[in-house]
């Protein structure tokens, strides 16, 4: 009865129980739980060795040994492979196995008691915990490597604000020994000007349970204070109950200095722009004005808001607005610089001329436009005044020329009359006094000189006008012969020989009147200043210089002249080399003016008593 109850209990135990009987180990009692483990083969009376079910060979060995030695055996978390059925794949299970030898009445071992308790769930949990521990160690190592290699100093504070952890970088930065009392030293290393603020702010953040983000100066190992950014976040365990603050210190000294310099630079540039009495402005990449300098406000009498991003157009003279707007859109589309001359309205309604210029600056911050409006109204007006004055002067000059020409022309007739009357007087009146004879000669000479002066004055004016005559290809010989024809009387009177040689450079591109005037003056001078001791010889040659430029030489064997040191003074108007010979002294002045105005120059070589050579370089190379 008791045995039956015991069997019932064993049958329904959650652990597997089986008895194995005899040295050959036959299944005896096998409860349901054990049968579920081993399999349905485990039937009473069968040999375990022939129907092991899932019992592996090594456990069968152990059974034999336990039977023989009589020592119990316990295996914790023994792994069994549950056989795969059609519906389920094979899976691992873990059992605590106990093999207990059975002795009947203290005699020798007659069988074995086999217990199997399923510990699969516990074992799996244990294995997971183990894997987690490995993973945690790995992460921990990684975190440590990271915190100790990043340039930032990392730290952990507890709820009381005491330092729980600080990464080694703190010691490198501050130069403090590893034994330093962090909580005592740290506040002392903060710049005195920042200390109170920082302590207050971190206290406040801790009291509020929030993170923080502030900048302060910390003393570096070399004694220099460097700007650091401190950021920390609370680690919340219970709601609103932070226990730790984790944070990092980043050195931002250089960035701070740089941004400080940038701010300063920007303020200085703005001050500069505001100090310039010109309209200065900047525009976005889209072409909207985003800055006007102070002077713009003063000039227009409008505020920045009143002007707006495109309001500058309204300042222009209405008829110019459409064109200005079109050109601005074009510049924005293409990036081409903007430039234009526009009238801009001042605060008092007066329009003044301005040059508006803008250029695009392209850098990493994207394109922006920089512009200036320069007031050119005064220049504009000045130019108009100058133009008027120039026109007046040119007219006056023309009038003067005409006057001189007319005057010399008009004086000719009275002079002619005077000479006629004087000749008549000399023919009809008789002079006894030899001094009177002399006076007659002097009057005669004076009349002749007056005549020449008048003629040359007229010629001067005429030639001045001819200065700007158009150039044409001229045959030198035909011009020279034409001039000599005009001087035929003088040539004959002086018995002069004139040699013409134009073979080397027979033609010249020049103003016809100019060339004739130059030839006339040089030839008539050569005849006029002839040496009375010998027959005049005038040689006229044309050459090509070494640079291929045409030249003309006129050489005589006349009186010659003493050349002053400054060669230009030879040919000042009314400056006469030989006062005893008639002439107004304007001839050579005129020659020189013509030659220089056409881009050439005149050279003269002369020896008193031997002659003079004029060389004309028509064009200076």
């Amino acid at each position, binding site marked *: 009865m008791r045995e039956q109850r015991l069997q019932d209990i064993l049958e329904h135990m959650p652990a597997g129980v089986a008895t194995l009987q005899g040295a050959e180990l036959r299944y005896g009692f096998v409860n349901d739980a054990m049968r579920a483990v081993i399999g349905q083969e485990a039937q009473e009376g069968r040999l375990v060795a022939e129907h092991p079910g899932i019992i592996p060979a090594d456990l069968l060995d152990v059974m034999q040994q336990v039977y023989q030695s009589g020592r119990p055996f316990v295996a914790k978390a023994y792994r069994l492979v549950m056989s795969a059925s059609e519906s389920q794949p094979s899976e691992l299970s873990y059992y605590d196995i106990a093999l207990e030898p059975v002795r009947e009445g203290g005699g020798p071992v007659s069988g074995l008691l086999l217990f199997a308790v399923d510990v699969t769930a516990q074992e799996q949990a244990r294995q997971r915990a183990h894997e987690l521990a490995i993973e945690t160690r790995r992460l921990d190592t990684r975190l440590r490597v990271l915190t100790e290699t990043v340039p930032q100093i990392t730290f952990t504070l507890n709820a009381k604000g005491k330092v729980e952890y600080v990464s080694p970088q703190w010691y490198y930065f501050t130069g403090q020994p590893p034994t330093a009392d962090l909580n005592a030293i740290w506040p002392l290393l903060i710049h005195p000007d920042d200390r109170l603020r920082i302590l207050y702010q971190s206290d406040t953040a801790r009291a509020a349970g929030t993170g923080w983000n502030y900048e302060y100066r910390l003393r570096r190992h070399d004694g220099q204070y460097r700007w650091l950014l401190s950021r920390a976040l609370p680690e919340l365990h219970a709601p609103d109950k932070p226990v730790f603050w984790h944070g990092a210190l980043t050195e931002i000294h250089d960035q701070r200095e740089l941004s400080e310099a940038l701010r300063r630079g920007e303020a200085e540039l703005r001050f500069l722009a505001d100090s310039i009495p010109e309209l200065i402005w900047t525009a976005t990449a889209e072409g909207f004005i985003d800055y006007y300098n102070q002077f713009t406000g003063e000039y227009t009498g409008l505020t920045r808001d009143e002007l707006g991003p495109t309001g500058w*157009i309204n300042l222009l003279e209405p008829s*110019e607005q459409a064109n200005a707007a*079109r050109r601005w859109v074009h510049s924005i589309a293409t990036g081409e610089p903007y430039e234009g001359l526009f009238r801009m309205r001042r605060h008092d309604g007066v329009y003044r001329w301005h040059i508006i210029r803008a250029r695009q600056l392209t850098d990493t911050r994207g394109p922006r436009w920089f512009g200036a409006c320069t007031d050119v109204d005064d220049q504009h007006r000045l130019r108009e005044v100058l133009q008027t004055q120039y026109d007046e002067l040119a007219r006056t000059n023309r009038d003067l020329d005409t006057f001189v020409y007319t005057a010399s022309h008009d004086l000719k007739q009275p002079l002619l009359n005077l000479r006629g009357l004087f000749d008549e007087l000399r023919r009809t009146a008789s002079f006894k006094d030899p001094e009177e004879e002399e006076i007659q000669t002097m009057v005669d000479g004076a009349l002749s000189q007056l005549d020449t002066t008048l003629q040359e004055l007229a010629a001067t004016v005429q030639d001045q006008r001819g200065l700007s005559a158009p150039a044409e290809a001229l045959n030198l010989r035909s011009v020279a012969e034409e001039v000599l024809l005009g001087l035929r009387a003088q040539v004959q009177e002086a018995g002069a020989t004139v040699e013409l040689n134009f073979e080397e450079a027979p033609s010249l591109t020049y103003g016809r009147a100019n060339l004739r005037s130059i030839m006339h003056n040089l030839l008539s001078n050569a005849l006029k200043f002839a040496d009375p001791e010998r027959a005049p010889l005038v040689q006229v040659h044309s050459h090509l210089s070494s640079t291929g430029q045409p030249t003309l030489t006129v050489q005589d064997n006349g009186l010659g002249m003493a050349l002053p040191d400054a060669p230009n003074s030879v040919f000042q108007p009314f400056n006469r080399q030989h006062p005893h010979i008639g002439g107004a002294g304007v001839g050579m002045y005129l020659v020189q003016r013509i030659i220089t105005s056409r881009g050439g120059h005149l050279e003269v070589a002369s020896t008193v008593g031997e002659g003079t050579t004029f060389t004309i370089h028509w064009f200076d190379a």
Partner: protein
Amino acid sequence: MIHIVYMSRAVRPLSDQELQQMLDQCRRDNASRNVTGVLFYSHGNIAQLIEGDAAVLEPLFEKISRDGRHSNVVELVKKNIAARSFSDWSMAFHPLQSSGFDALEGFLLPDHLRQPPSTLTIADAMMVDLVRLAVFGPDAVATEPAEPAHA
């Protein structure tokens, strides 16, 4: 009567369908509130000119600024105007699939945009040109060759 011009960026690209829905809805809403104007959209760039009574436009712009579909809303101008320059409200964008859009009421292809109406001041017309340039890029806006300023 005032008009407001602003530019903004869509937080994510808008599909043809979304654009068309927006066109339908805005057209209906704007017509009922007597709001006219034009909206330009391309590659996430948005620019809009709206005109109407200040009492309608100011709260409308307030609502537009808070719309989560775009950000970086920059108001370029808000000023009194004498008269409307747009007869209705329309939208211009490049649909990915152009078929079907041509017939859509209130839809304009950016290439087919007319010059800004002459009722706008030259400064305001230039602003419309500039926002159109900013949204569609230089290729879509034919700028005339510049004449010398003092011609």
